[in-house]
C-alpha cells in the first residue's frame, strides 16, 4: 500500500509540473470549467435558500384555510360559515380573515391590505411594511392616504413599520383595523375574505378538510402541508428548467474538453514519447492523464462553488434571482441562510465533473497508447 501511495504522489507531482508548464492553455479550460460550476452552483444554492425561507415562513401559517367558491372563483365568505366550521369536531378555532390588494398608482405597485384585529389599532392608524416605508419614505407619525372604493381618500397615520424576521411576508403589507378595512373597500359587515382554522391535532387536518368540504359543499379547504408541497414542487420545477437551459452550455463545455484532451500539441506528444522511452508504461501515462483531469476538476469545482457561495450570500444574489424568485415592484429584501447540503454537492459533481471525465476518457487513452517512436517523431 505505501508503494502505491508513493507512486500516486510522484504522479501528482509530475502532473502538476506538466500543468504549470502549459499555463495559458490549462488556465483557459480551468476558467470555463469554473464558470460552469459557478452557474450550476448558483442555481442550486439560491433555490435551496428560497425553499428554506418559504418553509420557515409557512411554519406559522394556519393549518387549514377555507375559501368560498362561486362558479369556480374565489368569493367572499359569509360569517355564518364560521359557526358551521366551529361545530366540526377537532377544530380549535375558526376565524374570519379580511385581506385584499390595493393598487397604488403613485408607485405603480400592489399593496397587500389586511385587517389585524389582534393589534387593536385605532380606526385612523395603520402599520406599514418595510419595503413600502422605503419606497414612500414614510416614518412613524407620517400621514398616509388611500383612496376608498367609493372615491374619497381615507387618511391614516403611520403607527409603526412592520419588523419581521423576514421581509418576505411584510414587504408590501398594510395592517389596519377591521372597521377601517370595511370602510376602505366598502365591504358589507357579515362577509370575510376567507376563514382560517386552528386544528387541535395536526394529524387530523386532512380529515377536518374532508368534513369541511362535506358540510359546506361550495368551500375549498387548503391545507398548510399542501401549500408547502406545492412550493417545493414549484421551486424544484424552476430549478430543473434552469438546469435544462444550462444543459446546452454543458454540452458546449464537453465539446471543448474533448477537443482539448484529443488535440495534443507536438510538444505534449514528444513528452509522452520520451516518458514511454524511459520506461513509463501505458497504464502510468493513463493514470497521469486521469490525475490531470481530476486535479483540474477539483480546482474548478472548489473555485466555482466558493464563487457561487460568495455571490449568493455576500454579493446580493443578482444572478438568477429574477428567474427563481419571481418579480414584484415592492420586492422584499431578505438575507438567505447559508447552508451546505450533501445532496447539492452530489448533484453538482454528477452534472459537471462526471461528464468532464467521460469526455476526456477516450482522448486520454488514445494519448497513452501512442508508440514512443511515433510520438517522438510527432
Amino acid at each position, binding site marked *: 500500500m505505501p508503494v502505491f501511495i508513493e507512486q500516486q504522489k510522484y504522479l501528482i507531482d509530475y502532473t502538476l509540473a506538466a500543468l504549470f508548464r502549459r499555463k495559458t492553455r490549462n488556465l483557459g479550460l480551468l476558467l470555463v470549467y469554473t464558470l460552469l460550476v459557478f452557474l450550476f452552483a448558483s442555481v442550486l444554492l439560491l433555490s435551496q435558500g428560497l425553499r428554506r425561507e418559504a418553509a420557515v415562513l409557512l411554519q406559522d401559517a394556519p393549518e387549514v384555510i377555507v375559501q368560498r367558491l362561486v362558479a369556480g372563483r374565489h368569493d367572499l365568505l359569509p360569517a355564518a360559515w364560521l359557526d358551521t366550521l366551529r361545530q366540526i369536531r377537532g377544530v380549535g378555532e375558526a376565524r374570519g380573515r379580511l385581506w385584499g390588494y390595493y393598487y397604488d398608482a403613485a408607485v405603480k405597485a400592489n399593496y397587500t391590505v389586511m385587517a389585524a384585529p389582534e393589534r387593536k389599532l385605532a380606526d385612523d392608524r395603520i402599520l406599514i411594511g418595510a419595503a413600502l416605508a422605503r419606497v414612500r419614505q414614510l416614518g412613524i407619525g407620517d400621514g398616509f392616504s388611500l383612496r376608498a372604493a367609493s372615491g374619497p381618500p381615507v387618511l391614516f397615520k403611520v403607527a409603526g413599520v412592520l419588523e419581521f424576521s423576514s421581509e418576505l411576508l411584510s414587504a408590501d403589507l398594510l395592517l389596519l383595523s377591521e372597521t377601517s378595512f370595511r370602510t376602505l373597500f366598502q365591504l358589507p359587515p357579515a362577509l370575510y375574505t376567507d376563514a382560517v382554522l386552528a386544528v387541535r391535532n395536526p394529524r387530523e387536518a386532512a380529515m377536518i378538510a374532508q368534513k369541511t368540504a362535506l358540510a359546506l359543499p361550495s368551500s*375549498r379547504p387548503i*391545507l398548510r402541508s399542501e*401549500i408547502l408541497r406545492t412550493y417545493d414542487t414549484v421551486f424544484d420545477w424552476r430549478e430543473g428548467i434552469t438546469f435544462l437551459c444550462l444543459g446546452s452550455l454543458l454540452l458546449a463545455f464537453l465539446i471543448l474538453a474533448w477537443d482539448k484532451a484529443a488535440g495534443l500539441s507536438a510538444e505534449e506528444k514528444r513528452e509522452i514519447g520520451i516518458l514511454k522511452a524511459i520506461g513509463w508504461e501505458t497504464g502510468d501515462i493513463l493514470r497521469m492523464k486521469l490525475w490531470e483531469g481530476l486535479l483540474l476538476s477539483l480546482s474548478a469545482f472548489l473555485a466555482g462553488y466558493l464563487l457561487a457561495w460568495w455571490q449568493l450570500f455576500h454579493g446580493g444574489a443578482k444572478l438568477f434571482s429574477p428567474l427563481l424568485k419571481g418579480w414584484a415592484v415592492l420586492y422584499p429584501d431578505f438575507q438567505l441562510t447559508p447552508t451546505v447540503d450533501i445532496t447539492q454537492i*452530489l448533484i453538482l459533481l454528477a*452534472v459537471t465533473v462526471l461528464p468532464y471525465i467521460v469526455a476526456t476518457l477516450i482522448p486520454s487513452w488514445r494519448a497513452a497508447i501512442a508508440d514512443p517512436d511515433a510520438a517522438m517523431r510527432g
Partner: protein
Amino acid sequence: MLITPSIIALQLTAFSVTGTVLLASGFAGRILRGWDINSGSEQQLRLERQTYLISTLVGFALGAELLSLLLFIHTAESLSSQFVGAMCATGVLNVNAFGFPTLWLKIAIFFLATLWLLLNRADNQGYDYPLIRRKYGLLLAIAPLTALELAAQTAYFASLKPDVITSCCGSLFSGDNRGVAAELAGLPPQATLWLFYGMAGMTLILGLSFRSRLALGPLFAASSLMNFGVAIAAIVAFLSLYVYENPNHHCPFCLLKAGYDYVGYALYLPLFVGAASGLSAGVIAAFGSIGSLQALIPAQVRRLTWLALGSFAGFYLLATLLILRSKLVLLG
C-alpha cells in the same frame, strides 16, 4: 415526470454509466473473439491496448455508480415532502413498483464492478492474462444490468406524480388514507438479533480458516454476501429501532440524516467494503491454481480477506455500540 436537478443528474449519470459499460463490452466482445496471446499480429497488439481502455471505463462506471447510489437515496429523501403519506426515502421509493428494484440494481452493479476491477488487477499481474475470457465474460453480464438500471430508473421517475394543489379543488384530503407505505415491515427482532451475531461468528471463523485454505473461497464469498443481506435485514428489524429509540421506525435511510449524526455512513461504508472485498477474495481464490498466478493470488486474497474481516468487525463493533448506547428496551 418531475424535472428536478437531482433527477436530471441521476439520469445523466445512468446514461453515462450505461454508455461507458456498453462501449467497454463492445471492446470486450472483440477481445473475446480475436484474443490470441501467442500471436504478435497488429490485431493482437491493438486488442492488448484496448484492455487499458476497458479497465478505465469500468473504473469510471464504478465511481459513477457509487455517486449515483448516494444521490438516489438523497433524492428519494428530498422528494418525500411532495408525496402525501411519504415521510422519508422509503415512502418515496414505494410510490411505484420501480423504486426499490432500481436501488437493488445500483447495489448489484456496484458489487459486480468492484469484483471486476479486482479480477482485472489479478489478471494483469499474470504475464499471460490468464483470466481474460472470464473477466470479459463477466463484463458482458454487467452490461445488460446497467441498461436495465437505466430503464428501471427512467420508469421510476417518469411515473412520479407529486400531490400538489389543483385549481378545481384545493385539497387532496383523502391523502392520508391512500398514502404510500412509509415504513418497511421488519423481521422479528429477537430471531434477527441471533442471526445477526451468528453470521458475524460464521464469517469470522470462515475468514480465518480461508486464509490458509483457499479452497474455502466460494463459501467465504457466499457468507460475505449473506452477511450483507442479514446486516441490512438487521438494520431494518432492530438496529434502526435502537438508533431512533422508537419501536416502530424501521427506515434504513433515515440513518443517513443529520439528525442521527450521519451514523448511517459510518455503518454502511464498512458494510459495503466488507461485502465487496469478501466476495472478491472468495472469487479470486478460485483461480489460485492457474500457473502464472500461483505465486501472486494467495497474497492478494489474504489482503482482501483481512480488509473484509476488518470492515465487518468495524461494522459489528459500531452496531453493538449503538445498541448498548440506546435507551430503547426492545427485548426483555
